[in-house]
């Protein structure tokens, strides 16, 4: 038990369950407001976007901090993203449309934001299915190619949000801006910039950072 408590994965798992726990608590205490289905749909959608952005921030954070071990938590974040996307999708299919296939099909064609959101969800499925170590080994280099789909999925997620709001674009634009920053941090010149920043501000704190800093120093 003590060992489990010392494992950051245990805490991350717990924290990732909090948005769901909150919904269950609010649902039990009549706290979901006048339109509970809208509340649940919105909440699960927002946490899917947050999950996507957190997953995408692992790599830039790793580069910034030099802590390669952060990669160990990325899979869990990705799977929780898929979990909340699944809840979001089930809320729509069940509570919003009541499993009416004709209405759902009409909706997917008729409402562009549904089309985009549905596409993003479908694209998440192969990523979740190939998240195991065994699949990583089996797919080899193709695994990374496949998982680059997450960039497209995140873009579709933000577009899904942008297109559904009536007028106030503030929130979707905040998510869009964070996504653009996270994607930009993957551009080659940005990667170099991050490395320079790390060398400048935290050269001594992490051994890996120090090693890389020495390497960079020689290049100059």
């Amino acid at each position, binding site marked *: 038990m003590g060992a489990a408590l010392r494992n950051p994965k245990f805490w991350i798992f717990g924290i990732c369950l909090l948005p769901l726990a909150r919904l269950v608590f609010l649902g039990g205490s009549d706290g979901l*407001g*006048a*339109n509970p*289905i*809208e509340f649940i749909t919105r909440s699960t959608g927002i946490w899917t976007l947050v999950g996507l952005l957190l997953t995408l921030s692992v790599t830039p954070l790793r580069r910034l901090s030099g802590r390669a071990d952060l990669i160990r938590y990325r899979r869990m974040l990705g799977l929780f993203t898929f979990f909340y996307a699944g809840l979001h999708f089930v809320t729509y299919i069940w*509570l*919003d449309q*009541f499993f009416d296939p004709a209405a759902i099909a*009409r*909706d997917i064609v*008729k*409402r*562009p*934001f549904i089309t985009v959101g549905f596409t993003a969800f479908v694209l998440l499925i192969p990523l979740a299915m190939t998240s195991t170590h065994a699949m990583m080994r089996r797919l080899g280099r193709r695994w990374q190619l496949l998982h680059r789909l997450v960039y497209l999925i995140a873009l579709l997620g933000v577009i899904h949000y942008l*297109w*559904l709001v*009536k*007028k*106030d674009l*503030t929130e979707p634009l905040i998510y869009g801006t964070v996504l653009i920053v996270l994607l930009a941090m993957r551009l080659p010149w940005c990667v170099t910039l991050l490395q320079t920043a790390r060398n400048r501000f935290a050269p001594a704190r992490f051994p890996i950072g120090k090693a890389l800093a020495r390497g960079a120093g020689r290049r100059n």
Partner: protein
Amino acid sequence: MLLRQTADILPSEITPPEIYRERRRFMQGLGVLAAGAALGAAPDAGAGVKLAGVRAGAYTLDEDKTPYKDVTTYNNFYEFGTGKGDPAKNAGSLKTRPWTVAIEGEVGNPGMYDIDTLLKLAPLEERVYRMRCVEGWSMVIPWVGFPLSELIRRAAPTGNAKYVEFVTLNDPKQMPGQRSRVLDWPYVEGLRLDEAMHPLTLLAVGLYGEVLPNQNGAPIRLVVPWKYGFKSAKSIVKIRFVEKPPLTAWMHAAPREYGFYSNVNPEVDHPRWSQAKERRIGEFRKRDTLMFNGYGAQVAQLYRGMDLKKFF
């Protein structure tokens, strides 16, 4: 047609008084919380006060009324923020006294009406109307007010008056949502003169037999039950009679998505979503949206011969 004549329903019969009082206590508690949150902005004293002399109106519905709590905590009023809970949270800063409504434009009797004069202009009656939001949800609300036509008759429109423009208060100090440029303030809405004169068109000053809460458009608002909710301008300070159709706030913001008429119509979709169904607040499954929100028998003749896809 679901409308029926009833002469004997009193506002107090809609909700048992003990539930009323419980609600009042709840709302007072909420008010204290809101005041705390808004750092001293006290909730308006008028909201929740019972309106005297309200008679049963000619229009009622055989449908369950949306609970007072839902009507007053879930709505759109962008002057107080774009979230559905924002109006209830932020409308405490609105001062509804003193308040005047200017009557301007193509009328024989222009002038300023004090709100307390307006409240005595015509007998107050209760009307239970469906309210359909353009976003796809709906409510059933017992309003208190009088027909707009009572005011228009007194204003005596000239032959040039073809349209009526309604202007909401523009004061970012009282309406914090106006600090954001989400819409071009002030909020402007408009009706054709014959729509404005229609007996269903109501100037509302109350809700559930009580003074209208700030978040629902106090002290005086429009209610046009066969049109999407945003047509019913809230917290009105000016009514202008004009020759040309006014450029409404939503037409200005998104002309492709919001037209001048904005009649509830399940056959004409919003460009980004369907209008065929709606979620009645408090119900689990969606219900079919009715043509003209179920008021076709009364208003369809206003639009005879018009292509409603073109005049959306």
